[in-house]
């Protein structure tokens, strides 16, 4: 082995190890993010109760704004950190939950409903978001707990199920799930972009403009 071979081997080790460490850290942080997202979303009645007890309007406004910012930024961060589920090379190399991409798509769906609806005042939009978050959490936690974190302790039939739920041991399904998630994200992204271009970034389209569009 020459000096150059050894140098190349170390470089390759640093880069491959670093990449897998980064992806592994993201995968390990995502359950925490999901729990925080669920906690903040389901804790809305508690925050509203606290707001009612404020004697100063300023405190109430600040508490509500901080709550909304934290809750929504966590959802945005969840989508951003889940991006590795859309990369075919990553899903077949790393041990990730099989339906993690679908979980990311449900998070993006939540953002889309928040963009186009008013979930803090419309009970139907709030219910839709709650269901989506519940389904997304199931998509993430079931394969994460029973697959990624249980494949060393399961045996026989349960080991088969466990391996099926992990992307690196089930590459065919993993890549398929990645494509389905990419398609869902692309469709929802196009809807979000179309809506924003239509409204021109305003809270809603003015009535006169909407009537003119309808007349066309």
């Amino acid at each position, binding site marked *: 082995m020459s000096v150059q071979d050894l140098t*190349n081997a170390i470089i390759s080790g*640093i880069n491959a190890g*670093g990449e897998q460490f980064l992806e592994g850290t993201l995968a390990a942080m995502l359950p925490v993010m999901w729990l925080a997202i669920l906690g903040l979303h389901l804790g809305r009645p508690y925050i509203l109760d606290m707001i009612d007890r404020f004697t100063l309007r300023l405190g109430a406004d600040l508490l509500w*704004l901080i709550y909304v910012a934290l809750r929504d930024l966590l959802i945005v961060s969840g989508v*951003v950190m889940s991006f590795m589920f859309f990369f075919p*090379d990553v899903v077949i190399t790393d041990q990730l939950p099989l339906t993690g991409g679908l979980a990311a798509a449900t998070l993006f769906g939540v953002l889309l409903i928040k963009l186009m609806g008013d979930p803090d005042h419309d009970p139907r939009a709030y219910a839709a978001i709650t269901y989506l978050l519940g389904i997304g959490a199931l998509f993430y936690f079931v394969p994460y707990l029973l697959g990624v974190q249980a494949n060393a302790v399961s045996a026989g039939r349960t080991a088969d199920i466990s391996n099926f739920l992990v992307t690196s041991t089930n590459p065919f399904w993993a890549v398929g799930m990645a494509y389905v998630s990419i398609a869902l994200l692309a469709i929802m992204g196009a809807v979000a972009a179309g809506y924003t271009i239509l409204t021109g*970034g305003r*809270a*809603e389209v003015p009535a006169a403009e909407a009537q003119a569009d309808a007349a066309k």
Partner: protein
Amino acid sequence: MKPDDISTAITQALIQGGAQWLVATIVAFLPALWTMALILHLGRPYVLRTLRRCGLRLGADVWWMSYLLMRDAVLVLTFALSWIFFEPNIVTGSPLPITGPLAALFLLFALAVKIARRVDDDVNAYRLSTAALVIGATLYYFPLVFAVEAASQEHLSWFAQNLTSNANVPLALGIMWVSLAGVALVAAWLFFRALASANRSMTRRATARPVSPAREPAAVAQ
């Protein structure tokens, strides 16, 4: 192999590997930044709806300023980190999305629209910057997902061979130089526009400045 050889190998590996690691980290961060930039830009209607419900002006101002700062800072940061797409050695040596430089150019165009027109008051300017961002993001995501990060997929091998920068060097360099020329044009336009705007506003202020009453008689006497 002698201890000196191993020492040399480790030193070289740390230097070269560190450089590659830095580039790889930027490449790994860019999809996150692009996604964040898009979500923050497209989320404006939601931010406005939340803002309208603030009972106090202070809360509304803090909310809006935080949103603006975050949204625009992420855009600028994404463009700054996209600079790796304009470095020929990195473009030819690392697997990058082949249309990454064009994506950066569209991002700069969106920033230029923001600087030149009041995007938050002018609906058409907002639509223009949104369209530029969406086109830029598509040019970034498509080769990243289906070429750079899908090298193991045989049915996507055409994309991997044609849309990855180090696998299709002539096209990658061509796109890079064209985009760099575009970036230079937009940057030059922004530079001269800023200069002209500063000259205009300063001249207007200087001509509109009232003469101090205390100095006026002295000036007349001289």
